[in-house]
């Protein structure tokens, strides 16, 4: 879709994965769960709460990387959402889903070109996706990556499309 908008692309920090440094250890997933838990306790989060990680780890052979919602400018998930649960915040740029309103129709899964939206692992009719740990300053996956394979930054124009 071609668009014309008043502002240029919304400037925002996003998470970028550095494949050459990703170990596929999945600690990002572990900490994602903890950070989205009620208890905020890593052990309790995994043992007593049912939380679907918001990060997807792709790995094949020696290559791996973590993928989270890209918080697209055009947010096709939000545009496709039939309930209005999925919204892109016009100020922060964060695309987030209100699980109170989500009915689990999976239209966003159909729309997300990154495959970054997950169905709830525990059978609830809601989706689960990265919210950039909006309340924590830095996404938990980024701050806990043991090899700095995830960075959280606003890309400069010359960095787009390159690593």
């Amino acid at each position, binding site marked *: 879709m071609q668009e*014309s908008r008043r502002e240029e692309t919304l400037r925002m920090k996003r998470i970028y994965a550095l494949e050459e440094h990703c170990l596929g250890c999945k600690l990002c997933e572990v900490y994602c769960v903890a950070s989205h838990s009620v208890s905020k306790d890593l052990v309790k989060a995994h043992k007593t709460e049912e939380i679907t990680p918001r990060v997807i780890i792709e790995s094949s052979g020696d290559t791996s990387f973590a*993928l989270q919602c890209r918080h697209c400018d055009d947010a096709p998930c939000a545009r496709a959402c039939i309930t209005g649960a999925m919204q892109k915040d016009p100020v922060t740029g964060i695309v987030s889903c209100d699980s109170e309103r989500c009915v689990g129709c999976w239209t966003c899964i159909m729309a997300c070109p990154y495959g970054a939206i997950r169905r709830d692992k525990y059978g609830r009719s809601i989706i689960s996706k990265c919210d950039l740990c909006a309340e924590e300053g830095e996404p938990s996956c980024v701050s806990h990556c043991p090899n700095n394979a995830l960075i959280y930054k606003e890309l400069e124009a010359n960095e787009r499309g390159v690593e």
Partner: protein
Amino acid sequence: MNYVIIGNSAAGIGAVEGIRLLDRDGKITVISSEQEHVYSRPLISYYLSGQVELAKLKYRPDNFYEQNGVEALLGDRVLRVAPAEKGLELQSGQRVTYDKLLIATGGQPFIPPLKGQSGENVFSFTKLDDARSLLAQIKDLKEKKIEGQAVILGAGLIGLKAAEALIKAKLKVTVVELSERILSTILDEQAAALLQSHLEEHGVDFILGDTITEFGGNSNHLKVNLKSGGILDCNLAVIAVGVKPNIPNITDNLIVSKQGLLINQQMETSQADIYAAGDVAEGYDMLKGLRRVIPLWPNAYNQGLVAGQNMAGGNASYDEGFARNAISFFGLPVITAGIIDPPAEDLAAKAGYEVLTTGCLEKKTYKKVVLRENRMVGFINLNAVDRAGILTGLIKEKRDLGGLKDQLLSNDFGYLSFAEEWRREKLWKG
């Protein structure tokens, strides 16, 4: 600037939001024949089945109109548009003028000419009021302690969602479908068979290759006559054979094609300053290479968004229309998009189509991709929908997938399957 939008659903809301991207101050008037605040029509089946309360049908927050500076004229109807004066005449007698007008009146159920169909307990299922009426009827049956039976005509998306909802509301349901398979426009034979048996496991009965010719009986006890000669007894019936554009008969100057209002990729109609979007309009199907109505929610919203931007002086366009659906029945999810069954004649003509499938009956999974000249043009993911959006994205991207064919159906298919450069280009967009 003075914007008027006829219609209060996906396309209309998309247009409001599109306008507001560029113009924070112009006046927006939304006119809708329904009384409702902005609600989501696809959710009516969830409402009917009790999965979702009425309050949660809202598509946008309660303060949506205020926040967007919208004057909503609900429960009113446009009688006439006078393009020369740029004025509208409403049923209520009010006159409204516009600088830019959007027609987003959506679709309406197509009701085949059947005898006796005007009977009380024969319903359509596209609007909240339909759901309300059905609920009232179900309640009535319950109060009378009657074990309800329903017949649904049409095994399309609406028909089957209605079937699911009615089963969940403890009715017995029989679906009558003229075609030899269910969801024939979005599923191929195998997928349809799988889904059908899943629905049957949950209590839905199907009569395929048949249709209803006449409704008889009385309002509490309908007799449904089938073309094949059979008769079904039921307490209520739902007609869901399809929707058609709801083209208001309000102006003569618009070109109506075979189906809907003809629009270009900027959502402009043949009449200056009048736009159309959503199920009423005939947009461009990028896969089929032709104009057609694509009556789907995301399509409607996106068209509305583009129309809104252009009404506000922008230069947006939408040419990514194609069929796509995400739906689930009794916990079995299906996502399909694009051309899921290449026309037999094209296959025969070796028109560059290639079809790949995989699946497992036991697990009730089925995956299919359709390629045309190595480009993704359609897929079915049945009960294996995770990350299906990547395939949708590939359809839009029209990239040559020659090297990826063996991975497209894999459960691990993802960005690692792409060449490194491609992956980086997509993931490092900023």
